[in-house]
């Protein structure tokens, strides 16, 4: 038993740490060869700048702002995508009607959506609109394919035995659809954070991480830019982690 846990530990923690170590070492070596902070600051300096940012109140306001915007836009996208995927699962024609629209949304260049939204919306709203539009087809397709996995025979059977709707929902649909939908949500959520930040950079949104990244770019302060970048990675990681925890809880519950 003890042997197994140490093996798991090795597999899940040690190897990823080795990977991280290789990355940081390469970064460190590259930075010391280039030896110009404006081009590539060392990881030590970048983390130092991040820790300095921790003490600033504007830093936390910006992180909170970006997090809030991500969650709001994700929720909008999520509600629309799940509603539409369920409707189109139940009514086949709706699915056919939606299909060209979804293809359209998926193939419009991200930058076109961003540039047009910047002109149409206020700069606090534009990032949310942009990432909601771009995340929607990803979530919609993910949810639709999860719904396809449900065995139609079991649905038929439950219909035959007149299983009440809510029991059907909790004991049949959710357990089936849940885990794979959560995988979609997990990748959608961190993608959403990246989009929000990109849009914030272009929109100069007040109280946003993107805005401060833009400013550190203007001042050629690459170390601080990387500090913000590390924070953005941590934020994405944190959100993914929350979803993983929820996923585990659902699997246990199932």
């Amino acid at each position, binding site marked *: 038993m003890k042997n197994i846990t140490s093996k798991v530990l090795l597999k899940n923690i040690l190897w990823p740490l080795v990977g991280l170590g*290789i990355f940081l070492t390469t970064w460190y070596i590259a930075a010391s*060869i280039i030896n*110009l902070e*404006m081009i590539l600051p060392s990881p030590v300096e970048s983390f130092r700048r991040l820790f300095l940012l921790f003490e600033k109140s504007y830093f936390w306001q910006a992180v909170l702002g970006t997090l809030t915007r991500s969650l709001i836009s994700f929720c909008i996208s999520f509600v629309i995508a799940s509603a539409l995927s369920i409707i189109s699962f139940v009514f086949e024609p709706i699915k056919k009607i939606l299909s060209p629209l979804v293809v359209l949304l998926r193939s419009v260049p991200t930058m076109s959506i961003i540039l047009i939204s910047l002109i149409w919306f206020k700069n606090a709203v534009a990032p949310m609109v942009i990432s909601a539009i771009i995340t929607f087809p990803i979530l919609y397709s993910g949810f639709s394919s999860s719904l396809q996995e449900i065995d139609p025979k079991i649905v038929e059977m439950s219909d035959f035995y007149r299983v009440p709707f809510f029991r059907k929902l909790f004991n049949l649909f959710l357990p089936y659809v849940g885990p794979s939908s959560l995988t979609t949500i997990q990748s959608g959520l961190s993608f959403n954070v990246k989009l929000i930040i990109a849009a914030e950079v272009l929109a*100069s949104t*007040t109280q946003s991480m993107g805005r401060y990244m*833009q*400013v550190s770019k203007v*001042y*050629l302060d690459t170390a601080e830019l990387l500090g913000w970048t590390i924070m953005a990675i941590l934020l994405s990681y944190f959100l993914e982690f929350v979803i993983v925890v929820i996923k585990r809880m659902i699997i246990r519950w199932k």
Partner: protein
Amino acid sequence: MKKLVFIVSLLLIISIPLILLEGCIPKEEQSEITEINISVPDGAPALAIAKMLKENSQFEGYNISYSIITGGSTAINAAVNNNLVDILIAPTNLGAILYNRLKGSKDIKLIANVFNSLLYIVGKDSSVESLEQLKGKIVYTIGEGATPDLTFQYILDQKEIMYRVTDDPSDDEIGIQYESDASVLLPKLNSGLVEYAILGEPAVTKTINSFGCYELFSLNDLWNEVTETTEGFPQASFFAIGDILQPEHKDLLNWFDENSMDNVDWVNNNPTLAQETLEDNGWATPVPLNTELISRCNMEYISAEQAKNSITSYLSVLFEMNPISVGGSLPSDDFYYQG
């Protein structure tokens, strides 16, 4: 396991020479420069080389190429970092930032101030006559953390007008909002989503000609008012970078100095010709060049020695507002080129 070790060592083997090579290339190029690149950002700064572009001015012993770069300060930085440019126009404070950031690896000197402020506050309400009247309103500006933003804040500070970065200002303060560039701000001004904006030429003329906006304030005038000077502030300057600063290229820089001075008169006298020349060279500015626009650009070629005082006081103001806006410290005397 073996596979992993193999992959890791492969990655290292590939990456290390690449990094080493990156450091070596510029050094090899340093031995001879007869190729000279003179670059200016798109927009008004391009006016500063219009005559030279038109005549393809050359100096004996050198092959000089002129170019207009689009993409704002990011493109300027990229050009500097990749040794693509020997003389360029940049916002004066960006030059100071580069001077501080490149210390020890590359020399950069200010050779002349060429544009005083070409920034203006525009709006559709022509009745606005004092900044006080903008209280409770939102002023959109380009260039967050850069010249337009900092000088406007300085002016408001001096006039003791309260301001805040917000889209919901109270009645006793001005709200400031940012846009990444004029191309985003112009449609919003046109549609009425934005009422007041700080823009540079030639975007200012565009709003006046096409959207019925008025030039409400010149930041230059406001600056003069609060600093009690008459010169305005030196917004953009010519910088020389790297080997061109070696003594053997002194004649070239003198020649450039004379040509740039001639250029100012030439542009003022030949606006149409200047526009044609610039458009042929990739100038992406859809406004007819007229004397009014040119005069709003406040183009004047003042050599570093003469401009030094106004530049130092300008940079000190920026430094006091936010030290990072000049790169963390005020440049010392060797920042100013002595011909």
